[in-house]
């Protein structure tokens, strides 16, 4: 008994249950994705699934299309979100948090419900559902993820640098491009990661916004993984997605996860 107490009085061991839990439910499943990708239905090793992916033009096309949509969406979110974050950080509101909170509040409504309402809005305005609707809906869903990190970095920025630049004769434009933009880059990076990663893997939004006429990579994975005999092929597709996500988070900023928590 005393030994047990001794072990637990070393507080380092308190993380053990969590580490065990994570090993079982995070690391092992990810390994399993790879295992399933390299086996056939009977559990024998095979690389036929990969060969199928590289010769399966629908999958490749969908994949490229999804990446393209994600890039477009990220760019649009950045173009719309940066000015908004900049304005919010600049303006000296008496209660400065209100605006930022108003931008985050829609996230409390279930995103699928918001998507359905967007579809209805498009119907009411007589706009066709398609690529345009898809981009609008994605941008609408992920814009807060872009605004919030940029707003955060801009707000924490040392304003004396801007003042110094102005004193030294920089006009507004130079000051913006040479001082504010470089200083806000960490926020921009995490914003990009936070918008790009969910967009490239989204599956329900696209389906609802286009009446299933446009298929994104996420929907394709969902289709295959829920079909029993194509499960292994689905695992290959997930592995491809996982690689993209890994690359993005490798090149992106590590702070993005913390930001997501900060938002809510």
């Amino acid at each position, binding site marked *: 008994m005393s030994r047990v107490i001794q072990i637990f009085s070393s507080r380092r061991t308190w993380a053990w249950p969590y580490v065990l839990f994570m090993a079982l439910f*995070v690391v092992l499943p990810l390994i399993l994705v790879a295992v399933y990708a390299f086996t056939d239905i009977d559990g024998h090793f095979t690389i036929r699934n990969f060969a199928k992916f590289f010769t399966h033009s629908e999958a490749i096309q969908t994949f490229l299309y999804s990446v393209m949509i994600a890039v477009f969406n990220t760019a649009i979110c950045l173009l719309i979100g940066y000015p908004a974050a900049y304005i919010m950080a600049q303006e000296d509101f008496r209660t400065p948090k209100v605006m930022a909170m108003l931008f985050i*509040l829609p996230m409390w*409504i279930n995103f699928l*419900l918001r998507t359905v309402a*967007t579809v209805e809005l498009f119907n009411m305005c*007589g706009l066709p559902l398609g690529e345009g609707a898809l981009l609008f809906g994605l941008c609408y869903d992920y814009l807060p993820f872009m605004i919030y990190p940029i707003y955060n970095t801009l707000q924490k920025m040392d304003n004396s640098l801007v003042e110094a630049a102005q004193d030294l004769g920089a006009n507004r434009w130079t000051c913006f491009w040479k001082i504010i933009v470089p200083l806000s880059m960490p926020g921009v990076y995490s914003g990009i990661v936070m918008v790009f990663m969910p967009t490239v893997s989204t599956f329900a939004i696209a389906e609802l916004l286009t009446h299933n006429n446009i298929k994104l990579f996420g929907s394709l994975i969902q289709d295959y993984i829920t079909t029993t005999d194509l499960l292994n092929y689905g695992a290959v597709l997930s592995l491809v997605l996982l690689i993209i996500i890994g690359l993005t988070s490798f090149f992106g900023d590590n702070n993005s996860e913390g930001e997501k*928590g900060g938002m*809510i």
Partner: protein
Amino acid sequence: MMYEGQMYEVRRNSGISIRRYIGISIGLLFCLMGFAQSKLTYELRMAATGEVELLDNFPASYAGEKVNISLYDGGKYEPLRYDEGRDTVDFIFAHPGEEDLSAWGDSIFCYSESEEVVWTVWRSKKEPKNRNQRVLVTNGRNTFEAYLHETAESHRSHGWIWFVFAGLMLAAGIAYACYVITERRKERGLTPVEQETLRRKRMGLRRHYFSQMYLWLLLIVLYAPIALIAVFSFTKSKVLGNWTGFSLDLYANLFTGQADAGLNSAIWYTVIIALIAAVSSTILGTLAAIGIYNMRSRQRKVVSFLNSVPMINPDIITGISLFLLFVALGFSQGLATVCIAHVVFCTPYVVLSVLPRLSRMNPNTYEAALDLGATPGQALRMVMLPELWPGMISGFILALTLSVDDFGVTFFTKGSGGLETLSTFIYSDARKGGLTPELRPLFTLILLVMLTVLIYINIRNSKQRKN
């Protein structure tokens, strides 16, 4: 000969006069779009409910079956395309004689809602000639002949929305033009220096108003779909976007439990799963945070990386990997697997919200408590917990939110036993082509509660700042 100042004057004048017309021209553009839209789609959608007259008994298990529907014209119509493997079916009608298939409806959504069959004809570009269409329904074994009735649920196009936009833009343009003209008048008879200060002041103001306008425009767009949900929560119609008069019935249904049984159980499951996931991830995460904080730097790095993996992974990957794990282990998927999955992606956030509290706290107090004869349990309860409490609370709330909001992970781990949370319920509902109407009041209430909390926090903060 021209002075430098004169040139400057000329250039600025031309700039302003162009700007003056921007608002007006955008307004005109919207006006044109309004006209174009109203001409293009005078009948956007026709939803006909109920009263399908059949020659044979209609199959009860209609939703799961592959069904062909075709317009009835002596049996000469044939369906062009329909999606297999979905519980709703899209159709495009082919007519041997006609080239343009979208003549009156280019696709049909159909599903059965209890015994009555709901047909929604999406986006018909022209008004149907015959409102009581005869259709053929086949499910592979039998063919049924049916009438498609238009009912009160059908509604006309909303091209007028564009006119509202156009009107607003026009008004804004005219107001801006008037503003510029009056400001120019004020400048008359002033010295150049006074004019310049006035201009500077005005430029600042203009910048302020433009940036404000940008933010508000963005907010309007962001809230438009939500406003749609909120507004239509006060009417009884089944279809979102169809006003059938003011009524509080949906709210009453929600609270008296008369709403769809699926919705009720989805709400309960969502609450139960969120509570279980939040409580267990708070306990697990707090312990883990204490452990991680006391680790040596290398160990710490490894565990921190492990901690960030579920946060980096998108839902679909977390969901699929857990799905594969449960398949491989032979777990039957249901409430337990969903809870485990939720704990997986909630705990990292708890860890991250507790860690800062730990680094702010004096590390010696815990040791001191042990030295003074407290057991580790007592020391944890009486020394550490009070310090960590705020971090744990925020982690708990975070976990609750994430769990309630989650769709991707739940979708893959819920199994096929009929377990639905709100997200997956909405998804399967939306796929069928319609939303359960009671969802509208539910989310309106959630939004109102959140808004109230926000306003309350703001008032409290501003009061504290004053003190």
